[in-house]
């Protein structure tokens, strides 16, 4: 396979060609969907869900039956041709699948889809699909991608990797929200004790910092977030580059009395610890913010995330058949 990058989301890791980028993502750790596109078409779709609360576990083949019946129905409705090959034999080596329950199948309509449905060790069911035009064959590539699937569930920290932003965060922090705007990626995590971890990455840092220093840029850009916090900013070295250590404490309670509704508090008092730095190699600004309610509960989370945080280096020349371990990369 050509140059590849990691795509890691909700504990599921895949190694995909570097020009396949996240096009859509939905759901949470238990159930979700992600789609990767190249410059022209959808290239990969991954769906995951945990089967629980159904009494007897549903067999994987039944899920595949339902999925294909649904597709057939849609094709009939649209008057399109649709053919399926169950138990397809395009995988050269199935050893990587181990003794897990799985099914490999293909279907063909406007596109050809190479599918792997598999029950992961920790109980999530994954349907992974690589799409090809009808005039191209992606059997080898599909096999390499299937082989690269790794489930991080059960590890202490999960790696997250999208659009070249890559870091690891403690597994007990759940992704609460994300904003994947062009030029500004933000992932928000929530954990116990009402703490929040926010990871930002901004592109074109040189332009953003053209007329202002990082120290002055940060409080202006995040003015809204910092409105209830008094911040102290100190220059520090982060990953060998210029960075900032930010400490924030809640503003005086007296200020609240000046608000229109002084006894309603939609914005709770929070402490802030953050690291901000400019990665000159990639021309990006990275920000890791930890907001917490009680002093002493911060547990050095920011340092942990920053130490396991890097942009470059995830591009690899993939060897066909290589099974990639996540734990080694996780901080």
């Amino acid at each position, binding site marked *: 396979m050509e140059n590849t990058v990691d795509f890691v989301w909700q504990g599921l890791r895949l190694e995909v060609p570097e*020009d396949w980028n996240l096009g859509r993502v939905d759901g949470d750790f238990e159930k979700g969907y992600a789609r990767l596109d190249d*410059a022209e078409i959808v290239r990969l779709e991954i769906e995951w869900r945990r089967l629980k609360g159904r009494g007897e576990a549903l067999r994987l083949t039944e899920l595949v039956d339902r999925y294909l019946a649904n597709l057939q129905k849609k094709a009939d409705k649209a008057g399109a041709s649709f053919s399926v090959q169950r138990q397809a034999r395009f995988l050269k080596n199935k050893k990587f699948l181990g003794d897990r329950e799985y099914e490999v199948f293909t279907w063909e309509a406007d596109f050809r889809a190479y599918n792997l449905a598999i029950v992961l060790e920790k109980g999530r069911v994954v349907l992974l699909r690589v799409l090809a035009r009808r005039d191209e064959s992606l059997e080898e590539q599909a096999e390499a991608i299937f082989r690269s699937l790794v489930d991080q569930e059960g590890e202490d920290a999960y790696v997250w990797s999208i659009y*070249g932003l890559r870091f690891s965060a403690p597994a007990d922090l759940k992704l609460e929200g994300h904003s994947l705007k*062009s030029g500004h990626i933000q992932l928000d995590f929530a954990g116990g004790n009402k703490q929040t971890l926010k990871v930002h990455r901004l*592109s*074109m840092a040189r*332009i953003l910092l053209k007329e202002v220093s990082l120290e002055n840029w940060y409080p202006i850009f995040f003015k809204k977030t910092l409105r209830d916090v008094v911040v102290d900013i100190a220059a520090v070295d982060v990953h060998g580059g210029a960075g900032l250590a930010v400490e924030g404490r809640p503003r005086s309670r007296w200020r609240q009395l000046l608000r229109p509704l002084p006894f309603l508090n939609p914005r709770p008092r929070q402490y802030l610890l953050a690291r901000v730095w400019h990665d000159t190699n990639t021309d*990006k600004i990275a920000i890791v913010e930890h907001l917490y309610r009680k002093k002493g509960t911060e547990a050095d989370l920011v340092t942990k995330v920053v130490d396991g945080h890097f942009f470059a280096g995830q591009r690899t020349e993939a060897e066909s058949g290589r099974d990639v371990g996540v734990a080694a990369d996780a901080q």
Partner: protein
Amino acid sequence: MLASRPTRNDSLRWEDNDNGEVQVFIERQETWKVKLLSKVFYIPKERKITLDEVGTEVWQMCNGRNSVGDMIELLSEKYQLNRKEAEVSLLQYLKTLGQKRFIGFVLEGEEGPPDPGKASGKRWVKK
């Protein structure tokens, strides 16, 4: 879309300012409302839009020879952007320029302007 080649509207006047940024000049439309308002208020004959660094870069690439795909490649390389990031931002920007009729799109197979910046007599394709 990726194969189409954006080209500047020849009827617009534009120039580089001292900072190397492109300034586009838009002439005031002589509608009856504008005429009436101009009796009471001062309305300049033209307004000036200054493009930022990236906007200037894109504007200069809109010469009818670079395809949208080429522009994505160039921008993602120059500003170290992920291809998708460059694509989304550029398409949005081109859409805005197109809606304002600052640019048009030469479709695949059509001839672009022989000498960018000068009137070419090509068919104007609005997307």
